[in-house]
């Protein structure tokens, strides 16, 4: 038998949404729902294997070809993206990148050097590079909103869904067209060529279910 198609899912919400999509498409996902501590799980009748991983690791596994496919947020792709195929916008996990700062401050004008705190240093640098602006980036791992409140940075670049966390902390969105985000189906470059039929079949099913969900 052919070895199973291996798909890496970003643990957490994207995993749940993807599993729902796959179940709607007719795959038996009991093994994932009752996973315990296992990290590699068969779905359907064993023709697909699900691997659960952290977002950035999904990209690493797919890029190195140990997983054929992956489901990961566009935010992670923009931050870590390198060489793989991005074959489907899954439509869920929607949010956006936004630039936010303390209400009432106008840090974009003036001649002082600007400091931005973010979990996404590459996205931030690219965004300001596009504006022709020279900035200092500080990488923060946890709640980025703290940085401007503590005076560490002038503003933040982060993903925003509703904006309520920002509001509660006295931050306002300065620009939210940095980039729209949603979950993407990515494929290893060699796998897509070597296992075209299987991958396209799965991607087509997922695309049809996505259309129904919207």
């Amino acid at each position: 038998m052919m070895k199973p198609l291996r798909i890496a899912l970003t643990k957490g919400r994207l995993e749940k949404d993807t599993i729902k999509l796959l179940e709607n498409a007719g795959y038996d996902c009991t093994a994932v729902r009752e996973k315990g501590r296992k990290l590699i799980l068969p779905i359907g009748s064993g023709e697909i294997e699900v691997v659960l991983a952290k977002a950035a690791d999904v990209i690493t596994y797919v890029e190195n070809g140990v997983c054929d496919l992956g489901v990961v947020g566009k935010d992670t792709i923009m931050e870590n993206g390198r060489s793989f195929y991005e074959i489907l916008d899954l439509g869920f996990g929607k949010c956006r990148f936004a630039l936010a700062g303390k209400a009432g401050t106008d840090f974009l004008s003036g001649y002082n050097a600007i400091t931005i705190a973010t979990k996404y240093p590459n996205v931030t640098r690219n965004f300001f590079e596009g504006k022709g602006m020279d900035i200092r980036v500080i990488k923060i791992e946890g709640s980025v909103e703290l940085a401007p409140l503590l005076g560490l940075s002038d503003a933040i670049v982060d993903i925003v869904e509703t904006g309520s966390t920002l509001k509660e902390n006295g931050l306002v969105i300065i620009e939210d067209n940095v980039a729209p985000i949603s979950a993407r189906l990515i494929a290893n470059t060699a796998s897509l060529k070597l296992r075209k039929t299987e991958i396209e079949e799965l991607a087509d099913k997922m695309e049809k279910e996505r259309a129904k969900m919207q």
Partner: protein
Amino acid sequence: MKNYSKITPVGTKDLLFEECLANRTVSSILGNVFAHRGFHEVLTPGIEFYDLFSESISGIPMEYMFKMSDSKGRLMVVRPDSTLPIARMVSTRLKNAEHPIRLYYNQRVYRYNPGLTGRSNEVMQTGIELIGAKGKRADLEVVTTAVEALSKCVPDFRIELGHAGFFKALAQKLPVNREEREEIRGFIESKNYSALNSALDSLEQTQAVNVIRKLPRLFGGIEVLDEACNLCDDSDALATLEYLREIYNDLSKLGLGERLIIDLGLVQRNDYYSNIVFSGYVEGSGEPVLIGGRYDNLLDSFDAPAPAIGFGINVDALASVMMNRGNIPQGKSVEVLVHSQKGYEIEAIKYTNTLSEANIFGENSVFETEEEALAYAKAKGIKKLSIVGENIKTIDTGV
């Protein structure tokens, strides 16, 4: 200060025994294929002037190259690619050579890869360049050499054909500037369907736009060409499809069957590819093991215009696939340990040499006593021990 004397730099490694053997085996199998087909081996310098690889010619981003300066402060790079040095060599030292020039190389190339992804910054690459010949015969010669090279290593490879001219012909018809065009090309290369769609949505919906929209999906068997033919009526684009069909049909005669695939979305960043492009894939490697194509305009950059086509193979990737499959023949191990009695050291060395001439693997013992030599032979699994003195006495070590 931290001492780095005991670790290798990120992206490099020592190759020991089996891995080293696998690497050398693949290089030698491929070198043999090339040499038998009339290609001549060359080596180019490990360091070159940066100018040779400037991004406008090479398509290699500056940050991917290892750079340093020479004693005059000029910018140098550690060779990131072999085709450009060969183009330089052809346009200078081989300026007056008769065409076609058939060359092959087997040397390491160096590129920085984003850290901690497990990729090597140092890759053994082997490949050929056929310079000064254009047309279908030259293309077939190089692609069939690629096919033969891969089939000598991993019989289940796939060869994928594309044409750089197809996208170029269509992209010319798009009302976009160079930057937007490059962005669109990037989306096709990464098969990013959704981003490509949104980039094209803002344009007037012409036929070219519609074909480009489908480009990332235009890969598979010969039916891809039929599909593409039905989509467009641009004569330049159609000519590239017709040419691909001819090449495909010719190559089918090699009995490649489903291992021959077509990808019209094969639009590499290497802008120097002008015509047919191709890649090779094998199960077990997450990236193409072979990349090649025709680059008729590259030699213009060196004021020595000539058509050219070639490919490069990632020897490390191929070696690792073959090793994992157990397809690397084991090297012969030592059969005889030769030990000398005191005063007969040179005789023993001479005897070891005669063994080697008879293609018997013999190791000259460097121990003082016979007991130590015997213990060593047993530990190493060497079957025979020859003691060289007045006479030569050979005993079984019992392993």
